[in-house]
């Protein structure tokens, strides 16, 4: 927590974030078929990770903070994964509403 990052690091991260924003917008104009959304999400996740690690300083923080930060996303995966697991398997049995 007492770690102090250099201004240069912050400017670098900032530059990367802006660049990535431009890339997302550009890539959205290219037809990647089914891949457009995953790519956009991957870039967003990358940007978010940069913010979390450097701007929010998780990289220099205690393991506990890391676990806490990760747990939110883990629980999101539980919510999304299991719920979608229901919807995606609904048609399997072939009787409506089962």
């Amino acid at each position, binding site marked *: 927590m007492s770690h102090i990052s250099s201004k240069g690091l912050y400017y670098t991260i900032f530059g990367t974030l802006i660049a990535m924003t431009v890339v997302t917008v550009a890539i959205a104009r290219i037809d990647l078929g*089914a891949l457009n959304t995953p790519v956009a999400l991957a870039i967003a996740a990358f940007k978010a990770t940069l913010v979390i690690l450097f701007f929010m300083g998780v990289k220099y923080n205690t393991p506990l903070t890391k676990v806490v930060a990760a747990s939110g996303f883990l629980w999101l995966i539980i919510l999304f994964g299991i719920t979608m697991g229901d919807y995606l398997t609904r*048609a399997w*049995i*072939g*009787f*409506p*509403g*089962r």
Partner: protein
Amino acid sequence: MQSSFPLFPEAASSIASDVDLLYFFILAVSSFFAILVSAAVVYFAIKYRRRHPDEVGHDIHGSIVLELVWTVIPFVLAMVMFFWGADLYFRLARPPADSMEVFVVGKQWMWKVQHPEGVREINELHVPINRNVRITLGSEDVLHDYYIPAFRVKMDAVPGKLTTMWFKATKAGTYHIFCAEYCGTQHSGMIGQVIAMEEHDYEAWLAGGRTTGTAVENGERLFTQLACITCHKTDTSGRGPLLAGVFGSTVQLMDGRKVVADENYLRESIMNPQAKIVLGYQPIMPTFQGTVSEENLLQLIAYIKTLKAPAAAPAAGAPAAAGQPGRQ
């Protein structure tokens, strides 16, 4: 009907006694543990009661062996319950192929029933015994739930889609129907009766019932009345796809997805046609939300299901029916 102070429900369907068996199994396991632990606690509390104010207990910290034992045994028993319950559930979820079909629509606060032969009833359901009955459930407004305790079956009626349940009555008699999903003011009044009858009684009842045509006939009439026919012609010249053979086929959608055309797909195609556009067609079909009641919808679906693919079906491997871009 029932005695005035029953303690156990009648078992009047083919699955009822199987459900009861699982019930008794879990009851036995539970009673065993409940009695074991309660008895132990009370026994210890008496046996080891404190005799002087300064007394303390023995120096016991735990035992890995015991922990394992009482983790593994409940776990194994719980798995037995799971597999047994799952097996029953799968049987309850899959209507046999030879089932006769009945449509039931829940609406605040009544059950509207329509037999394939066209006979309709409200809050009652006449069924023959020893025949598999498949119920397709719809709802006009909110969630309801069709529950027949004597048959041990229950299924939610969900607005916006169709659901299925089935049973085979085994004992002639009159049994309760309850709405088991809370649906507003008269929820507890949304009740009725199943009348399970011998086969010949049932036939007689059917013959005596007033009908305005079978479900399929009604569907066909609606198909003309609602002008579906103007777009869905009997050949491929219409602005909409040919509906013959669509049920059960795999439909190619404009956005690249493929879906199997089951009842819920047909339902959605009529109520919310923009949601899934068939490849090769324009999204011009109007929505029939609000125009077509849930019952009429079931009739339309019954009718569309009878439309068989044209006799000159394409040979295997050949492209889908000519002029039917979306069909596979």
